[in-house]
């Protein structure tokens, strides 16, 4: 454990720690471009030069290993001069097209120019022309003139996605980051190169020209794309919706969590935000396809339910639930339908299709966000856990009614089979967010919010419970599922249902040991800071 001094502060670090990381522990950010903690060290941008006593020249903090007694100055005249010089070099051939660059506002060139640059241009000669607007793959577009050749993207595709699409070609100031001839940047993680590109060379084709980043607010969240539960940052607009095709949510970005997703997310998760406000969202309650007010539709739904139960008994009804509901929603559903109404058929299991496989980075075959909790919470009372079984029993006439919680059965079982099975039903409710074959097959449709419009927790495949806040308000007439449950309970004259997720989680913890750990911030505590992409 060497002890070193950085800017007059002593710190003890594990052997092998690089100076840049040691400084980080002291809260000192040494400007850097090519260094990324999850990638191998390139040492090529030379932005992190610092002065180390007894060294013959400046040393790069990203490669130099901290040793005992080392004395580092990150802000000496020499170090500052070197940094400004490196920035001047990097800008010498840079097009300075910030006004039309999507990276503006979150660009490390802009940032360091303001903090450590501020030199006047000494350039009297022309800049070098390079490739502009080259589409690299389905998600990423390249402006080679903006590239500072830090090689982060090259190392990402070599070391993380292991797909090897990118390389640096030519020499000297004609060096250029490009894709290998005939090879598109098309891998399940390609969007990450946009995040790690410190400048506007690699931009997201999807986000491009939609909105200036300074109009965005951010909240931390959890991706619901699969059972991994990658930590994300939701960037959204609070005003000026005309900037983003009228949508509030502009993008998902990965949020660093070493225990879950490291620095990355997959493309499927990254672009899953698009459906959150698409035209398939259910925005008003409906009966038999006709929109109605909440009151009248709820009244009809409750009446149908009560009539059915008195005629056929509760055991003729199946609850079919998505395994992506929050822990709180699952627990409330279990309390309401399982323990309260004594329904025995609660099904959530749909085996992943053959196209879905675990990979060795993040992606899980299970595309549900919360199968872990479903297994814990519903298993105790349910006697029909597989959706296939419920379908078969419906087709055999044994199940005569469905209550569907945000589960689209079409992709797994085929739209026609669902429509046909539903025809035989005496009554059906669909509580969910999107119009699909299942919602269209159900009589009463009650629109619920998506995860960015509600607060809750989900449990990933490894059992990790993770919290997500409501980022934006409910779209249209949609309501959080907990509130719909409460309204239904009222109509059915059942005990009151708690709608505050934090309090539901508390009860959940009392019933299930796994959820006993506190997750919600104590009421007075400040919200956890949103970590930025490094």
């Amino acid at each position, binding site marked *: 454990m060497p002890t070193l001094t950085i800017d007059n502060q002593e710190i003890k670090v594990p052997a092998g720690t690089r100076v840049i990381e040691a400084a980080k522990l002291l809260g000192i950010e040494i400007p850097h471009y090519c260094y990324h903690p999850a990638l191998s*060290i390139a*040492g*090529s*941008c*030379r*932005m992190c*030069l610092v002065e180390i006593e007894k060294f013959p*020249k*400046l040393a*790069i903090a990203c*490669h130099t290993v901290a040793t005992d007694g080392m004395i580092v100055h990150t802000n000496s005249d020499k170090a500052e001069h*070197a940094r400004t*010089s*490196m920035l*001047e*070099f*990097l800008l*010498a*051939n840079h097009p300075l097209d910030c006004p039309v660059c999507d990276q503006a506002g979150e660009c490390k060139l802009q940032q360091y120019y303001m903090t450590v640059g501020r030199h*006047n*241009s*000494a*350039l*009297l*000669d*022309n800049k*070098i022309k390079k490739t502009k607007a080259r589409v690299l793959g389905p998600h990423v577009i390249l402006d080679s003139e903006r590239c*500072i*050749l830090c090689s982060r993207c090259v190392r990402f595709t070599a070391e993380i996605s292991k797909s090897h699409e990118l390389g*640096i070609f*030519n*020499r*000297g*100031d*004609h*060096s250029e980051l490009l894709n290998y001839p005939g090879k598109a940047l098309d891998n399940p993680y390609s969007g990450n190169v946009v995040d790690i590109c410190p400048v506007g060379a690699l931009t997201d084709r999807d986000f491009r020209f939609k909105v200036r980043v300074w109009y965005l607010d951010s909240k931390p969240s959890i991706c619901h794309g699969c059972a991994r539960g990658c930590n994300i940052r939701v960037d959204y607009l609070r005003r000026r919706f005309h900037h983003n095709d009228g949508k509030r949510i502009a993008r998902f970005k990965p949020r660093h969590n070493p225990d879950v997703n490291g620095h990355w997310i997959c493309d499927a998760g990254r672009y899953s935000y698009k459906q959150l406000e698409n035209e398939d969202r259910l925005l008003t309650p409906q009966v038999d396809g006709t929109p109605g007010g909440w009151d009248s539709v709820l009244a009809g739904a409750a009446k149908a339910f009560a009539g059915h139960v008195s005629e056929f008994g509760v055991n003729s009804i199946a609850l079919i639930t998505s395994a992506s509901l929050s822990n709180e929603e699952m627990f409330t559903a279990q309390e309401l339908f399982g323990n309260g109404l004594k329904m025995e058929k609660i099904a959530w299991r749909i085996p992943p299709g053959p196209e879905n496989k675990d990979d060795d980075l993040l992606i899980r075959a299970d595309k549900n966000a919360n199968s872990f909790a479903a297994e814990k919470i519903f298993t105790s009372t349910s006697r029909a856990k597989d959706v296939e079984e419920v379908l078969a029993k419906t087709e055999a006439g044994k199940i005569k009614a469905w209550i569907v919680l945000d589960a689209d059965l079409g992709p797994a079982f085929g739209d026609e089979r669902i429509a046909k099975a539903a025809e035989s039903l005496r009554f059906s409710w669909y509580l969910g967010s999107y119009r699909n074959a299942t919602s269209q097959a159900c009589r009463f449709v009650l629109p619920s919010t998506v995860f960015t419009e509600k607060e809750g927790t989900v449990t990933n495949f490894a059992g990790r419970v993770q919290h997500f806040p409501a980022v934006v308000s409910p779209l249209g007439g949609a309501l959080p599922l907990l509130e719909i449950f409460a309204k239904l309970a009222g109509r059915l004259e059942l005990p009151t249902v708690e709608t505050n997720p934090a309090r539901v989680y508390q009860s959940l913890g009392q019933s299930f040991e796994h959820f006993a750990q506190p997750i919600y911030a104590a009421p007075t505590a400040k919200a956890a800071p949103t970590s930025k992409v490094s």
Partner: protein
Amino acid sequence: MKLVSKNFDVPDSHKLAVCEQNGGYTRIRKALEMEPQTIIDEVIAANLRGLGGAGFPAGRKWSFLPKDNPKPRYLVVNADEGEPGTCKDKYIMTNDPHLLLEGIMIASWAINSHTCFIYIRGEYVKQAKILEAAIAEAKAAGYLGDKMFGKDFPLEVVVHRGAGAYICGEETSLLNSLEGKRGWPRLKPPFPAVEGYLACPTIVNNVETISYVPWVIELGGEKFASLGSERNGGMRLYSVSGCVKKPGVYELPLGTNLKDIIFEHAGGLFEGRRLKAVIPGGSSSPVLTPDEIDLPMDFDSLAAAGSMLGSAGIIVLDDTINLVEALAVLARFYAHESCGQCTPCREGTGWMRKILDRIVAEGGRSVDPANLERIAKNIIGNSICPLGEAASLPVIGFAAKFPEEFAEYVARGETAKPSTTAVAAVI
């Protein structure tokens, strides 16, 4: 006295039989009777410096090999010879390839390496063929291959041709290229002696350095050392080019006076010409004025004079040479050869080239000389490998020592163009 160049003028000196008639392969036989450590000690005592450019003592480099590393060790001979003004290695490989092979055998025995790569400049097609032929002859004679002179010591020598990049002469870039990777220099540490070819301990030495090893064995370290100057043992090949009557490669003791090399050995200047400048150690070494050339050509004396012995490629420039144009040629070379990996060298060499090209084409601006110097100084010490420095030192040297040549261009440019401040304001 001649050592390495002794057989250069012997007809068919590249053939094994001719070479053996002239003393070839006697030193390796002697060396095989010696303990490897004894050989290393002799090389240290000989003060044999690395003749590729940096002048690092060869014996000391060999002793840096880790003793406890179980991985194989490699010897890599640097035959990339890319430094402008330098052509000595080519002479050795053309005229006495077996001398180089003998040196390789002794060095391999000394450092316990069984594979040697000769990384040869791509343009040296003829030399690569000569080396291949020499290796085949040595193999057929039982000097190389499974056994070396009957001793249970296998040694393979592989000729690997480069593809024409100056930067691949830099040892770590060379190793990357040898491994089939892009020729980008590596970060140090680790140094090649610890982690080199395929991350195994590797010694990289220049052709000339290795070719002197047989002579260290023949003469003994102490005798060899005494031929040169203090801490600069033996002799070396000086490549003299430019404005002299007899350009060529001259083998002389280390420490020979530069003035004597130019005026006696290389025949002096052409009639009626005046000496303007001398680049003493390959294009990367800072230029000397005529007043500064009365000095011994060894590593330490040139360093003391603010220049470098480098590859000992002496470029003589007389009063017919326009130094700004000469500097522009150099700037173009370095900008073209910068590998582009690190920021200061990639951007700085290109920028200096642009400025110098513009000065030559349309005259300079008053800010140009200072800006050139500033750019050069911002590269120095901040790049990954020494190419950045090599590109900058000439600029600083020329600008500082020959300001009047720049002033002429600036005067021309400033009268022809709007003032630079006006241009800068527009930009």
